[in-house]
Each structure stands twice: as structure tokens, then as C-alpha cells.
């Protein structure tokens, strides 16, 4: 039957946190098998958080526990990484010194032990460097957005840039070449010191330089954002304190103002195509041919309900001229009189209106008819006699109350 062990694991971690932390911070990741640690080891073994290699004294922290500790200590690790790496480098140098001494006195067991230590130290150093560079890249990826305030974001960016700068300095101070000579006959160590470590260091230095450059770039961006925010805030505060404020134009010294003020407005650019240029024919001909189609396209609207159908005449655009029937009739009457068709007759305006039943008042009709006759060119005007028929006003004898208009051909 499955057993739910979480509570036991958490209890063991809580009860022996000090021992675990000491093992973690010593970078050995091992709990010494001593009487003082006996209870802790028993308890941690029961929940499988430590393990022991055959022939070794200490108990190693399990990988899963290390991951948890790495996660919990990531800020601390970042902060002290430079010191850690510097210390690891010094320890490595010391190990090489031990190796030289062991070889000199012929202590072969110790030579093998130190060689194993060196391999582990180099691997740990590379792991830590990789971790550091990854953490810089993470900052570049998230751009410090987990910090809301821009000033605090800038401060953190400055701190990270400083850490990266120090690490870059530290890496350039490492002299990898001298270690290669100490590799001796151990093939693995030779390969590690002559190939893997130099190659990895070269990559780390390049990656770190790139990260440092981008972190500085990001810092510039953040400072610019801060400047703009300050600019906008300044105006906002000023408008609040000075309602109705408008920057003055009159005292602008144009010869000393920045480019932004000298922004030039739009200059109209317009030209007609040269229809006499044969070279333009190729371009203009399809445009001209498509002009009619273009007109059809214009009718297409996004709003289907507003579509207005237009019938295009294949012969070209024509527009029906709806003539005024009154004007048409007046023109016909005048033409007929001028043509002499009513030579011996008097044409009465009222009778014409009655005959054609047009929608116009008699007086308006007579007025338009007389105006048309009066508007004829001199010679033609003389060919038509025009006489108003009506009643003289009793009070103003010069006024005539018109009832009809008589027209008669008479050259």
C-alpha cells in the first residue's frame, strides 16, 4: 500500500536543517559520518534524502534535495558567486600544489586522490560559471520586469552589471594554460585541463562579455524610460499647479532651438502626367482603360445597405438631360413664330398654357414667355411683336394688371 511520506520528509528537513545547510554551504554536499550527526543521518536516510557510496565516510545529499537548496539559495548564490568562484579557483590551485608535492614524494595513492579532487573541482567550477552566466541571461530575458518601480529596477540592473563586470575581470585573471602542464599521465585529467576547461572558459568569457554588453544596453534603456517618465510627470505636475498654462511661442529663439522645433510642415507635391510623352503611354494607357472599372469599384461600399447600382453605358459616360417642359414649350413657340408659321395670327399666351396644361401659374408663364422673347438677339427680337393685355390700375395708371400676352410675327 502506498505511503504518503511528505510530512515525514518535511519534518526531517525541519529537524535537521542546520546539518543540511552546513553540508550545502561547505560546497562538499556531504554530511560527515560522526556521532554528532548520527541522529540526523538516520532520520534523513529513512526518508531517502542522503546516500552513501561504498567505502566513503560521509553521506551525500540527494540530487533532489540539492535542487531544492539551489532554488532556495539562488539570490545568495548570485550575490556570492564571484567570491565562490574565486575561492574555487584558489582551491584548484592549491590542489595542483598538492599534486606536485604528492608526485615529488611518490605518494601514489594521494596522487590519485588529488587528481580525482581536481576533476571534481573543475567540474564544479564550470557548473558554477555556467549557472552565473545563465542567471545574467535570465535578467536579460525578463528585463527586471518583476520589479515594478523603475528606480528600483535601475538599481537592480546596476547591481547585476557590477556583478557581471567583476566576474569578467575574475575570468580574465585565470591562467588556464599553467594547469595543462600539470595533468601528468591521467588521460581524463589531461583531456579536461587541456581541452574541455580552456574551451569552456573561452565560451564563458565570450558569453559573459555579450551578456555584460546587453545588460549595459538594458540599463541605458531603463534610464531613458526613467527620464521620459520624469518628463511626463513634470509636465503633469506643472499643468496641475498652473491651470491653463500654454508654453510661450513668442520668445522662442529659432536660431538656437533643437531640430524637433524646426519640424518642416508638408510641402504639396503634385504633377500631371505628360500625355504627349510616348514613353508614358505604356503606363497611362492601362490607367485610362481602367478608369471606368475604377469608377465601378468606388461604388462598392463596406456597408451593403448603402450600395447604389450604377449602369455604365458601354459607349461612355452619358448623362440624361431632363429638360424643363416650360422652357421647352417657350422655345418651340418662339421658334415657330420666328419661322413664320403664325404669320397672320395672334398667339395668345393664356391659350398656349391652357392647351398644354403645364404645372405653372399663368402670370409666371407669361413672365417667362415675355422674358424669352425679350432675350432674343436684336434681329430676331424685331421679328416678334409682343403686346401685354390687361387692365390699367385705377389709382396708378402706369400700372397694368396683366391678363394675357399676345405675340405676332411681324418683321
Amino acid at each position, binding site marked *: 500500500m502506498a505511503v504518503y511520506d511528505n510530512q515525514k520528509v518535511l519534518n526531517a528537513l525541519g529537524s535537521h536543517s542546520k546539518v543540511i545547510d552546513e553540508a550545502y554551504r561547505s560546497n562538499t554536499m556531504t554530511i560527515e559520518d560522526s556521532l554528532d550527526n548520527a541522529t540526523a543521518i538516520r532520520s534523513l536516510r529513512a526518508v531517502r534524502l542522503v546516500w552513501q557510496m561504498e567505502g566513503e565516510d560521509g553521506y551525500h545529499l540527494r540530487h533532489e534535495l540539492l535542487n531544492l537548496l539551489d532554488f532556495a539559495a539562488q539570490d545568495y548564490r548570485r550575490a556570492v558567486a564571484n567570491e565562490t568562484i574565486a575561492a574555487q579557483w584558489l582551491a584548484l590551485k592549491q590542489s595542483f600544489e598538492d599534486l606536485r608535492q604528492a608526485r615529488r614524494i611518490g605518494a601514489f595513492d594521494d596522487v590519485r586522490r588529488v587528481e580525482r579532487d581536481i576533476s571534481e573541482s573543475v567540474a564544479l567550477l564550470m557548473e558554477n560559471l555556467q549557472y552565473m552566466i545563465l542567471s545574467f541571461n535570465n535578467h536579460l530575458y525578463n528585463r527586471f520586469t518583476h520589479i515594478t518601480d523603475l528606480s528600483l529596477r535601475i538599481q537592480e540592473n546596476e547591481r547585476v552589471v557590477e556583478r557581471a563586470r567583476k566576474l569578467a575581470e575574475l575570468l580574465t585573471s585565470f591562467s588556464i594554460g599553467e594547469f595543462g602542464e600539470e595533468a601528468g599521465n591521467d588521460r581524463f585529467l589531461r583531456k579536461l585541463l587541456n581541452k574541455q576547461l580552456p574551451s569552456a572558459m573561452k565560451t564563458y568569457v565570450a558569453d559573459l562579455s555579450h551578456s555584460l554588453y546587453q545588460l549595459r544596453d538594458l540599463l541605458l534603456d531603463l534610464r531613458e524610460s526613467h527620464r521620459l517618465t520624469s518628463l511626463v510627470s513634470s509636465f503633469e505636475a506643472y499643468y496641475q499647479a498652473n491651470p491653463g498654462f500654454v508654453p510661450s511661442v513668442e520668445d522662442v529663439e529659432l536660431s538656437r532651438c533643437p531640430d*524637433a522645433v524646426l519640424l518642416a510642415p508638408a510641402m504639396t507635391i503634385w504633377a500631371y502626367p505628360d500625355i504627349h510623352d510616348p514613353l508614358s503611354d505604356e503606363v497611362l494607357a492601362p490607367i485610362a482603360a481602367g478608369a471606368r472599372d475604377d469608377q465601378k469599384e468606388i461604388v462598392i461600399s463596406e456597408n451593403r445597405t448603402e450600395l447604389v447600382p450604377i449602369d455604365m453605358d458601354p459607349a461612355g459616360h452619358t448623362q440624361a438631360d431632363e429638360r424643363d417642359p416650360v422652357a421647352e414649350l417657350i422655345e418651340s413657340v418662339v421658334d415657330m413664330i420666328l419661322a413664320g408659321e403664325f404669320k397672320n395670327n395672334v398667339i395668345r399666351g393664356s391659350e398656349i398654357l391652357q392647351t398644354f396644361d403645364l404645372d405653372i401659374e399663368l402670370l409666371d408663364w407669361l413672365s417667362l414667355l415675355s422674358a424669352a422673347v425679350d432675350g432674343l438677339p436684336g434681329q430676331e427680337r424685331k421679328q416678334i411683336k409682343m403686346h401685354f393685355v390687361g387692365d390699367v390700375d385705377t389709382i396708378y395708371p402706369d400700372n397694368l394688371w396683366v391678363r394675357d400676352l399676345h405675340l405676332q410675327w411681324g418683321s
Partner: protein
Amino acid sequence: MSSEVLLGRTVKALLQGGIICDYADRELADYLSEEDNRERVRAFLQPLNRDVRATTDGRAWIPVYASINDATDRSEVRQSFKLVANQIEPLVGWLRLVMIAQQRPEPIVMGDTLYDGDLTKQLDQVPHLMQQLEVILGKGPFRKSINKDSPRWVRDGVTHIFEKLTEMGFFVKPGGTGAAYRATGKWSWLYDMMDYIQSKEGIPVEDPGSGDEHRQTSIF
């Protein structure tokens, strides 16, 4: 596209008063980023008393007068300045409104993409932000009569402002239509103008952190 065509397009865009940046027209911005090309453009513009300069952040190209010896040119510059001077208050109000509503620590800069739908949601139902929107809709280029009884007045107001800013060249629409608006280099030009006005008018420099909470509730 041939170099000659790009030269023509660039000159035309600048003469039409356009501010060129990666987002307004990537091809022309790339073309102008080459020193030789820029010299060709300048040689073309010089007889017309025009020149091309970069904004302070180096991210946009603006058409400027080559010299301002001519009285008409000076008058036009003053007119443009006057126009901008009157637009800054509503523009600042809008920038702050967007910063507060979207919890942005920095104002809009070239390349930012904003969505009118998002902003509407962020303003809607937040009385003091809606009040600020109403104030902005009563000012300068954003002036618009609003019917607050309409359930859509916030959305209409936000869209109206985005459209106005697009007309003014501050935004382009990436897809031609729709609700996304991409900020152009005109913002860089505006901040240059504000920089100048700040120093000219002696507007005190404000720490963006100080009094921020207070202003968030009483922007105007």
C-alpha cells in the same frame, strides 16, 4: 527595390512632413540609416530648404528646415510650435492615463503596441479613470461630444483618441484596420519637444515616484 526608387520615396515622404521610423516605414528607415543614402537625401532636399535629422534617441528621422532665414519659414515654425504647445496638455493627460490604466512604469515609446479593447476594459468601471478620459475628450485635438448615458461611450472615446493620434502620426495600424495600434517615432519627436519646452519654460524636473499615488487619483 532600387536605390533610386527608395531615394524618391524617402524624399517624398519627408517633403510631405512624414516622420520616418522602423514602424512608419521600415524600408525608408533602413535606407536613411546608411550615411551615404542620407547624404543623397540631404542633397536633394537642400535646394528646397529642407533637411533630415535624427531625433535625440536616434530612432526616428524628421524633416526640418535647413535654415530659418526666411520670414515665411520662421512664421511657419512658430505656427507649428504654437499648435504643438496647445496639444501637449491633452497628450500628457493621455500618456498618464495609459500609464496608470495599464500599470506601465514608463510612457509610450516607439514600437509599443496598444489595443483599444484592452484600454477600454482597463478604464471601464473605474470612475476616476473614466473621469480623466472625459476630461481628455474635452481638450484640443481629442475634443468630442460624448453621451455618458451610452454604454459605449468609453469604448467610443478610447477609439476616437486612438484614431486621432493615428491621424496625427503617433500610431500606425499594423494590419491596416482593427484594434491594434503601433507607436511610431513621432513620440520620440514629442519628447524632444517637451525637453526643449521644459528647459525653456523652467518646468521643474519631477521625480516620477514622488506624489505618484496622489496624482493617480487627481490627475487634473
